[in-house]
C-alpha cells in the first residue's frame, strides 16, 4: 500500500500524532476529502482552494477550524510545492494569520512548547516560504503580509527571543527565522521601490534596536571568539539578520 503513494505515509503519521490525544477533536470529514483531492491534483489548485476556503471559513468552532487548517497546511506542503506561487494571492491563506498569531503570543507568555504546536509552526513557515519564494515585484505579495497585528506579533516575538532569560527553543527560532527572512526580502523590495510606503515594517525597528544594543548581541561575539564554525539560530538572528534588516530600512 505505502509503495503506491509515498506522500500518504507522512499524513498518516501526522494523524497518529493527533490520535494519541483521545479528547482532541477529529479532522472533519470534508477536510479529509479535500486533502485527498489536493494530493491527487497535479496542478491548478486554485479551484479546490476556493472550496476549501469556504468550508474552513464556515467552521464555527475555532479549535475545530485550527485542527482542519493544520491538516490542510500539512497536505499543501507535502504536495507539489511549485503550485503554490501561482495561488499566493488566494484568500485561503488569510486564514493562517489567526492561529499563527495565537501560537506566538502563547509562546511569549509561557515558554513551554508542545511538539504539536512546534510541528504546526514549522509547517506554516514552510508553506509561507514556498508561497512567497523569490518574488521580485512588491505588488505580487498578498495583502496580509503587512497586516499590522501580524507584524506586531512577529515583532514582539523577535524581542522575546532576544531578551528572554531562558534560552528559547532552538527549533522555534529556526522556524521564526524563516518568517523574518521573508520580511527581510520584503523590506529590501520596499527599499528598492520608491513609490511603496516605506514605513510598512516600522514595527520591526524597535525590537531590532533592542537586539542590536542587547548584551546578547555583544556576548554572541565572545562566543564566536572560540572560533565556532556554525552560528546557533538565535545568534544568526542577532548577528546577521537584524543588521541586514536595519540597514535596508528607509522609512521614518
Amino acid at each position, binding site marked *: 500500500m505505502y509503495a503506491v503513494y509515498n506522500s500518504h505515509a507522512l499524513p498518516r503519521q501526522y494523524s497518529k500524532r493527533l490520535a494519541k490525544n483521545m479528547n482532541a477533536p477529529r479532522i472533519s470529514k470534508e477536510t479529509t476529502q479535500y486533502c485527498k483531492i489536493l494530493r491527487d491534483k497535479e496542478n491548478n489548485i486554485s479551484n479546490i482552494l476556493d472550496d476549501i476556503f469556504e468550508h474552513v471559513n464556515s467552521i464555527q468552532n475555532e479549535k475545530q477550524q485550527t485542527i482542519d487548517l493544520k491538516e490542510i497546511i500539512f497536505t499543501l506542503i507535502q504536495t507539489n510545492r511549485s503550485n503554490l506561487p501561482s495561488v499566493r494571492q488566494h484568500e485561503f491563506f488569510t486564514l493562517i494569520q489567526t492561529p499563527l498569531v495565537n501560537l506566538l503570543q502563547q509562546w511569549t507568555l509561557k515558554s513551554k512548547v508542545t511538539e504539536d504546536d512546534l510541528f504546526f509552526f514549522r509547517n506554516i513557515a514552510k508553506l509561507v516560504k514556498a508561497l512567497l519564494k523569490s518574488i521580485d515585484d512588491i505588488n505580487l505579495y498578498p495583502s496580509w503580509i503587512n497586516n499590522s497585528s501580524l507584524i506586531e506579533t512577529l515583532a514582539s516575538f523577535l524581542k522575546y527571543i532576544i531578551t528572554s532569560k531562558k534560552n528559547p527553543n532552538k527549533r522555534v527560532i529556526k522556524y521564526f527565522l524563516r518568517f523574518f527572512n521573508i520580511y527581510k526580502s520584503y523590506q529590501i523590495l520596499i527599499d528598492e521601490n520608491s513609490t511603496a510606503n*516605506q*514605513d510598512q515594517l516600522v514595527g520591526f*525597528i524597535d525590537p531590532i*534596536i533592542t537586539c*542590536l*544594543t542587547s548584551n546578547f548581541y*555583544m556576548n*554572541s*561575539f565572545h562566543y*564566536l*571568539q572560540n*572560533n*565556532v*564554525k*556554525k*552560528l546557533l539560530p538565535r545568534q544568526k538572528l542577532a*548577528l*546577521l539578520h537584524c*543588521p*541586514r534588516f*536595519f*540597514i535596508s*530600512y*528607509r*522609512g*521614518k
Partner: protein
Amino acid sequence: MLGSRHEEITQELLVIMLPKYTALLGRLLPSVSLWKKTVLQSIEHLFLLVNHGSKNSDVLTSHLPFIDHILKLIQNPFFLNKLPNQFSSSELQLIDTTIYLLSNCISNSTILTHIKEKKLSSVFLRYTSAEDESIVYNTHSLLAYTTGDDDIQSMKDPGALLSTVFNAFKHSVEENSSNSIQLLQTMQALVQHEQLKEEIVKQNMLGFLIQSTDRLVGTALALLLKLLCTLAFNSKIADVLRDNDDLKEKVQELSKDSEEEEEVHKAADGLVWKLVKGRRK
C-alpha cells in the same frame, strides 16, 4: 535618504555601541588569521551598521580608535597576502565593506586628516590590485583623498594610479554610467598634485577629457569643467586648452546659457576666466 526618525535612531545606536565595537575589535583583531566564516560575516554586518546613516562619520570622529582598528584590519598580512584573488567569499565581502566604510568616512575632514597621518598609501595601493571592481573603485577614492605630495613622490609609479582612474572614467563615459561623477571627483583630488598634472599630458588624457564636455551633462559636466580649470594651472595644459577654439566657444556658451544648471554655469564661468581673461593678466 533615510527618514529623519530613522536617521536619529541610527545615530543613537552608534553613540551607544561604538565604544563597545571598539573594545570588541581590540579583542578580536589579534586572532584575525583564525577567524572563521561566522566571525567574518558578523564583523562585516557590524561594519554595515556603522556605515549606515548620513551622520555616521560625525559620530565616528569621537571614536577614532575604531578607525584605527579597521585600518589595522586591512593592513593585516593575512588579507594583504591574499591579494589579488585568493580571498574566500566572506573575506572578500568583509574587505569590500571595510574599504567602502573607509571611503565613505573620508568625507569627514577630521577622519580624513587622521587617515592621512597614518601614511597608508602603499597599503591602499596594494588593494588596487584586487580582482574585485568595487574594492578597486573605492580604493581609488581613498587614495585620491589621502595621498599627500610626499607619498606621490615616493610612489614608484604614481601615473599608474591616475591611469586606472582615468580608464575607469573613460569606460563610464562610454557606458553612460553614473560612476563618472565619483571618478571625476577622484581625478580632481589627484590632479591637485603637480606631478599628476604632468601625467595627464604625458599619457595624452587631455583629448578625451575635452571631448567628454560634449557627452556629459549636469553635475558630471560641472565637475569635468572644474577639473579642466584645475588642470589649466599647468602652463602646458593651459596652452593646449587655449588653442582649442571649439572648446573655448563651447565653454563661453555654457557660461551664458540661462537654461543651464547653476553648477554648470559657475564651473563654465571659472574656466572662461582661466582661459580667456586669465591670459590678459
